[in-house]
């Protein structure tokens, strides 16, 4: 399904906080995550055990998700992190962090690992 | 660095030192450890500067400038893509400012508009402004923590608090700017005059001026109150000026004492050329000729390609239209309820009647105020003129010839009423040194350190490659202009900071500050603790946050 991704700052899902205190695992737990409206959840025939594959022409990731009734239909929220930044992009020298068009679908694969993201980035 | 000598002797120069009453005498000047001395302590390592046929004068002092405040950053921001600004002011960086001031013979500047809440920024800039000594005036026009004291006229309380504020912020003096104009938040609402009672506060602007004067004199601060007159550059300023002068005439504080080294004024008027926009300065001149306790600076208009606007005057900015006419590109900033600042750009033009009046008022006042010690030269830099226009401005004051030539293409309507055009008066060179050097030092209370070449003062000196005694300044104004355009030596605390066209920025200047005379520490503590509560109640930070911990090597306390 086509959705709009907004990357945001959340006090409980904060990359800075994760980097300060926790390990890679908790980072994957708390940052590889998205929030969607329960109606979208239904529409995509999701079950709680599934993960989401989010992609656009810039990249793709697999993340866990939670439902939140305050989130508008068609919108997926993610904390700003290395995961969400697989999908953000640059347009006229501006980084586009908000209102990014993405494809979202359920998947049984497990969330993208941090090490994989680092390996994608590394190219010396 | 150009100078590694411990001692310098300037030989055979023609000295002009109005404070010491020396007019063109041949004399040697001896410098040791940055100070002018009578005799060297040793004869080793003496650098000799031959000043034969050259003129030696104290370095210049700016009593009113804007070079280190948040507002200057708004100028830089507004101008960062403005080609004219970049070309003529090169981004107005701190180093650019220092370079230009030094190049024009200055070693001391007074930043004349700092809100206490932002004083840390000024201090940070001061520390990074090379060579120049500097001081800042705290703008207390809208200083609401003193509301109650202003209303009740509690001079003791005000003075104790001012003293503490100055020592926290490392301020030098007090600027009074449109008192409590900020009580009305709407930008289009203007008050008629400074006698009008406040709407939220139970006093008038004139009360604030008055109480501040008494408090400052009680502290015996080096500089008097530094007053901005509301509505400057508009006809309303004349009214406000007269209201203030009337009040000043009633104040009986006598500072005039036997020493000519001490300041005599109890009130300084800022850029007084902008107050009589009808071009008629007779009342002001008369007042000054009869009252020694008021002095003023004249901000000369340099007619630059473009000038930054640096103001906090609401009437000024409400009436200001930029060249686009549609949207005024200005930055309006309200600072912790201590007042607004307004920033923009404009261009002065010789074909604009008002600009001509602004220009000619300075000259009119400079020529016609009898006692030149009541006059100080300024530019309200960068608001009215760039410092690099000083040689030109000097020629307008020293030569009627130069003035006439410059005035030829001025606005016709102005020329018709101009009293300057056919005025043959000029300043002599000594007068010019008074208004640019000795008088500002005296008005700022700095004659112990600056503005003269007495033994024990800072060795801040200019050497001009010209024998002024052999020149008819009226006709030969070009050579005077040239001498000021390339001052041969500028010496600051015994360091040669300019020689020929080389400028050396590798020295640090000091921050001059003052807290005044305190009669009872106990009372002061009581007042400060009461005021700290005000801060705790209404401010976004605690009073102690104002403390500027500056390395003491940078500081010089005057009193």
């Amino acid at each position, binding site marked *: 399904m086509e959705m709009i991704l907004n990357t945001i700052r959340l006090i409980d899902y904060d990359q800075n906080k994760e980097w300060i205190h926790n390990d890679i695992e908790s980072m994957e737990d708390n940052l590889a995550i998205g929030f969607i409206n329960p109606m979208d959840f239904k529409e995509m025939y999701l079950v709680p055990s599934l993960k989401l594959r989010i992609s656009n022409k810039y990249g793709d990731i697999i993340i866990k998700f939670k439902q939140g009734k305050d989130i508008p239909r068609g919108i997926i929220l993610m904390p700003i992190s290395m995961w969400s930044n*697989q999908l953000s992009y640059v347009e006229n020298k501006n980084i586009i962090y908000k209102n990014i068009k993405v494809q979202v679908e359920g998947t049984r694969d497990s969330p993208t690992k941090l090490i994989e993201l680092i390996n994608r980035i590394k190219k010396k | 660095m150009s100078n590694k000598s411990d001692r310098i002797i300037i030989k055979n120069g023609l000295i002009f030192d109005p404070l010491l009453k020396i007019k063109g005498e041949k004399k040697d000047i001896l410098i040791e450890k940055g100070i002018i001395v009578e005799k060297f302590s040793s004869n080793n390592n003496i650098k000799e500067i031959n000043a034969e046929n050259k003129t030696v004068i104290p370095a210049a002092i700016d009593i009113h400038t804007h070079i280190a405040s948040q507002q200057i950053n708004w100028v830089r921001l507004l101008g960062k893509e403005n080609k004219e600004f970049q070309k003529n002011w090169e981004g107005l960086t701190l180093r650019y400012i220092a370079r230009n001031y030094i190049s024009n013979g200055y070693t001391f500047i007074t930043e004349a508009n700092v809100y206490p809440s932002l004083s840390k920024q000024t201090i940070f800039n001061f520390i990074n402004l090379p060579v120049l000594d500097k001081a800042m005036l705290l703008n207390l026009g809208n200083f609401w923590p003193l509301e109650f004291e202003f209303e009740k006229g509690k001079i003791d309380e005000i003075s104790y608090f001012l003293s503490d504020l100055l020592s926290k912020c490392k301020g030098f003096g007090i600027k009074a700017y449109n008192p409590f104009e900020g009580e009305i938040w*709407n930008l289009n609402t203007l008050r008629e005059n400074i006698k009008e009672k406040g709407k939220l506060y139970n006093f008038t602007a004139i009360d604030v001026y008055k109480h501040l004067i008494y408090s400052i004199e009680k502290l015996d601060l080096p500089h008097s109150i530094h007053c901005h007159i509301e509505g400057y550059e508009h006809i309303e300023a004349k009214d406000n000026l007269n209201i203030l002068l009337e009040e000043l005439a009633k104040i009986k504080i006598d500072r005039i004492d036997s020493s000519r080294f001490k300041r005599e004024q109890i009130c300084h008027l800022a850029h007084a050329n902008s107050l009589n926009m009808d071009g008629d300065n007779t009342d002001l001149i008369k007042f000054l000729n009869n009252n020694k306790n008021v002095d003023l600076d004249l901000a000369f208009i340099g007619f630059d390609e473009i000038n930054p606007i640096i103001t906090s005057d609401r009437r000024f900015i409400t009436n200001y239209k930029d060249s686009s006419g549609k949207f005024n590109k200005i930055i309006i900033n309200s600072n912790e309820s201590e007042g607004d600042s307004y920033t923009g750009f404009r261009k002065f033009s010789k074909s604009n009647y008002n600009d001509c009046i602004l220009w000619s008022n300075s000259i009119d006042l400079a020529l016609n105020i009898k006692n030149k010690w009541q006059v100080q030269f300024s530019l309200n830099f960068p608001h009215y003129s760039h410092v690099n226009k000083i040689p030109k401005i000097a020629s307008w004051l020293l030569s009627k010839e130069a003035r006439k030539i410059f005035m030829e293409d001025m606005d016709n309507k102005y020329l018709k009423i101009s009293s300057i055009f056919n005025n043959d008066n000029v300043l002599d060179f000594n007068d010019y040194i008074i208004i640019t050097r000795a008088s500002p030092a005296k008005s700022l209370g700095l004659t112990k350190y600056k503005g003269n070449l007495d033994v024990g003062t800072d060795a801040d000196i200019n050497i001009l490659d010209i024998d002024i005694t052999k020149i008819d300044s009226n006709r030969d104004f070009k050579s005077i202009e040239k001498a000021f355009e390339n001052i041969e030596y500028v010496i600051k605390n015994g360091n040669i900071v300019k020689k020929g066209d080389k400028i050396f920025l590798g020295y640090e200047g000091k921050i001059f500050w003052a807290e005044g005379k305190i009669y009872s520490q106990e009372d002061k503590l009581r007042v400060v603790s009461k005021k700290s509560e005000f801060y705790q109640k209404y401010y976004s930070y605690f009073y102690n946050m104002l403390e500027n911990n500056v390395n003491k090597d940078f500081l010089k306390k005057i009193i």
Partner: protein
Amino acid sequence: MINKKFLIKKNTEFKKMSDQIKITCSGCSLLCDDIIIIKHEKDIEKILGTCLKGKEKFNQIISKNRILNPLIRKNNSLEKINWDIALDKAVQMINNSIKPVLYGLSNISCEAQLNAIKIARKINGFIDSNSTICQGQVLNFASKIGITTMTLTDIINKSDVIILWGVNVVESIPRLLSKILFSRGKFRITGREIKSLIIVDIYKTASFNVLGTRDLALIIKPDNDIELIRFLKKYCREEYKIPAGGNSGIDKQDLERLISILLNSEHISILTGQALIKPQGEGHPMKELLELIKILNKYKKIGRVSLMMVGGHYNMVGFEHIALAETGKNQSIQFRNGKSVQTEETIISKLQNQDFDLSIIVGTDPISHFPAAISKNLSSKPMILIDNKKSGTYLIADLILPTAITGIECEGLAFRLDHVPIKLKKIIDPPNNILSDAKLLENILMKLE
């Protein structure tokens, strides 16, 4: 080793007053100066008054992800080195580079920022701060259009209306609303009762939870802010009918209320964030918002409207001010022959076009913040990281130089989000005698000279 005594113990009794110090938190750009620290000998025993985010900041002292030694990357793993070697290596990397870029700089003191600018000048590099992709953009629009701004004391004492537009301050600047909304002011003596809050956002953020009955919640369609602003601009200038269907997803009734508040309130403070920086369609919502404020201030008979940009990093604003005074520009500064020159480049375009051969990253984590494509480019060239904790960038950098935490382990000046300068104190000594950012950068500068 990290001293476990730094751990903040629970239920510690109040010590005698002398052990209490009032300090400023550098957890975010609000720089709260009312934080109390209770010290025991050389350690912090208790911290009172911070929000959760601030507490995190203090917990950084003992964080296990703290960097305590200089490190160099060899064969894909990091090795400890001593400071002499580390500084030599840094200087060598800098000297080998022709097109260095410096980036970050908004989580360090003004003194450190100044030294970084001096380094950039010395090595003819390109320097930019996080502000370029955040708060700085508002200033860039302001430099073209003008702006009316205010500071926190103004909002506390004067504002009767606070508008949060596309900014979720409850999560980003946690104590902001308790300072400006839930506070009494000189002219707002009844506090919250007399202050109205309006929130404009595309969804119901945590900040919506503080709304009361007199307040206004406006959920706007994504990318429609510009539509709403244009509508308001038009409405304020001429008689204009509000369409029955509302505008941008906001219904007619709410629009009427919004307009009436805008025109009739005494002191309106608009706080905005990232959301309005991105272009929408052909236009820039931030630019149009600045214009709207101008129009309102021109036509309003009472009161005024001002704007404040809410940035997160504690000294993002500082860089703008230090850079302006030093170079005449607030960001994206290219030095050539020791002078700053006109350039259209920003850190983004520099990285995008791979127009650099060394990056010096100070106090930030671009590898996590930037889109992956940009991070890829960044990681393809040598990188020096100066920071106090591990991060995505740490996993990539070639040379890592740790520093002390400003506001806890060293002092410095910072600018609050409203451009008011605030002093940060030193409370305890840094571990391993590591230097402050300012001192480390000064040492590098001296070595380069």
